[in-house]
């Protein structure tokens, strides 16, 4: 890509102390995020995929400065979000909006939805009341809500509608980047498709960039351009969507894809699931974090942490593994 990326994350690290001890001197640290790096260009969608404990939500929150990173940089339009504060941070945040997983929890139950949707306009200022009302009505219509319902309260809407309200709120100040943290997981199956179609439409219309966080690989295949697979706070594989699903190289990616049930594919053949549980992010295994469960682990895996390297020169597909799955035969 010749243009500079919209968002460039370098070596982002965030650890949390575990409580206890005199004066809070912790008994350990939760290694939530361990030096992840990726970039996102305008109009593109990067998906962060992983299971619970992989650090994807921590990544989203650290990128938006809800947490202060312990290490690393978050360059948004060239400025390091990690070092900004006050008004500079606020104006940078204008261009980045978030949509969360719980469509009920992320809306203030005591405010009418029109107020909720207008809030970003109010915070970032510069728009008078009449113009606010007009924009709220516009964006509500765009997400499929009736603008006349603006006086109602969140609890009067269904789950899918509440997620539309959250999307409207994110769109109203016309951000460049939307970070969506599991926006579909709490919705019914038939509603997920509706919301996904909506997100696709507005993304295409407005050229929005998305950082899409999910555990659902099928959604990723449907929505993302590039995918980063996370495990215990590390990115273990990163590739374009096509390349990742066609030729996954990391054993964890392979396990993840295999584990996804396919309707109509018949009963699951036994013995293919990888064993074990995700280890604790407090007591990280030495070397590669996946090695205790990895069917392809070799001696080096338990001592040397692998680095994220391209699978071939000039390839956009990178994997952090000492023994990745081999190149597919041409």
């Amino acid at each position, binding site marked *: 890509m010749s243009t500079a990326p919209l968002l460039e994350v370098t070596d982002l690290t965030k650890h949390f102390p*575990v409580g*206890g001890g005199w004066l809070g001197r*912790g*008994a350990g640290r*939760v290694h939530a995020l361990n030096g992840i790096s990726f970039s996102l260009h305008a109009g593109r969608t990067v998906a962060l995929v992983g299971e619970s404990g992989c650090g994807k939500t921590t990544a989203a929150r650290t990128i938006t400065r809800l947490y202060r990173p312990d290490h690393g940089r978050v360059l948004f339009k060239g400025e390091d979000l990690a070092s900004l504060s006050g008004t500079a941070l606020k104006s940078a945040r204008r261009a980045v909006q978030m949509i969360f997983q719980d469509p009920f929890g992320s809306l203030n139950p005591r405010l009418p939805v029109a107020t909720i949707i207008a809030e970003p306009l109010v915070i970032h200022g510069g728009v008078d009341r009449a113009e606010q009302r007009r924009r709220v009505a516009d964006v509500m219509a765009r997400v499929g809500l009736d603008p006349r319902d603006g006086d109602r309260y969140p609890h009067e809407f269904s789950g899918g509608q509440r997620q539309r309200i959250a999307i409207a709120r994110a769109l109203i100040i016309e951000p460049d980047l939307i970070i969506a943290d599991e926006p579909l997981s709490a919705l019914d199956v038939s509603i997920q498709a509706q919301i996904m179609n909506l997100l696709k439409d507005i993304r295409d219309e407005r050229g929005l960039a998305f950082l899409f966080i999910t555990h659902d690989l099928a959604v990723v295949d449907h929505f993302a351009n590039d995918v980063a697979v996370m495990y215990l706070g590390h990115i273990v594989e990163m590739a374009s969507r096509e390349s990742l699903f066609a030729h996954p190289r990391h054993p964890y990616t392979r396990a993840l894809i295999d584990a996804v049930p396919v309707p109509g594919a018949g009963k699951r053949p036994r013995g293919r699931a990888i064993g074990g549980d995700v280890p*604790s992010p407090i007591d990280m295994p030495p070397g590669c974090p996946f090695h205790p469960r990895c069917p392809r682990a070799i001696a080096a895996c338990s001592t040397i942490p692998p680095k994220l390297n391209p699978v071939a020169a000039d390839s956009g597909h990178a994997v952090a593994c000492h023994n990745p799955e081999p190149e597919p035969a041409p």
Partner: protein
Amino acid sequence: MTRYIVQRLGESIIVIALMSFLIYALIALMPGDPIDLMINSDPRLTPADAARLRAVYGLDRPLMERYLSWAGAALSGDFGNSRLHVRPVLDVMPGYLLNSVNLMVLSFILSVAIAIPAGVYAALRQNTRVDHVINLLCFAGISVPAFWLALMLIILFAVMFPILPASGINSIGGGGFLDTARHLVLPVATLTVFSIGSYTRFMRAAMIEVLRQDYIRTARAKGASENRVVWIHGLRNAMIPVVTVIALSFGTLFSGALITETMFAYPGMGKLIFDSIMGNDYNMALVTLLFATAVTLAANLLADIAYAWLDPRISYDGGGQA
């Protein structure tokens, strides 16, 4: 856990030391001092006499100096004499303390023994008439002012139907077990009414919350009888917050039920504290208030320990998951 307890004990000692200074200073800041009372009762005292007396009692020295000399004496076990009782403080206090303990412990046992079954019963019959009646009684108990209740009980049982004594701890010339017991009935009743109301409401709320939980449904799905579900699965979990609240209210045990004791002229700690403050009996006031502080701190620590002991999810060791 031991480390945690030691840590808490250390903190408690610091708090007590700070409180001792604070209480001392506050009492000293009160208008009037023992010498003023002497002047009131004996008008022949001249200002020169007053000054001399002040020097004798050390009341003309600066606050900090007086405090430090008290503290020094206290650390070696000498808490001074009570001016009102004309005896060492530590001689006077135990008697009152014992009376308070009798009153409080009885009241405590009675209220817990009634409140827990009542709370569970109300929770099981939520929103039925029985529940409404129990709730109403609880609110009445919590709202009724202690002094009014005391007066009503006295009028009813000591005046209109004179079956119980109206005040004191022993009748003149009496002193046996039965006599003391009769004197305790009305004060215990007055105190218990409030705590029964409060504990029952709490137990009910905790139980309702617990019975909504998924593991209760699991217990039923296993084939556990409803009794087992309620008393073993339910109560065991609901008791956790309830025990904490009860342990915390332990702290009031020794500062005394001031109003009740005063209404019944019952010689307990509450009355002692009150009398010593009103009578400018510095030494006694100081020691009794500090004692109340220490007991409150102990009760808090007890509550935290009980909480950790009952709930395996709570650990003060700061470790992560197994």
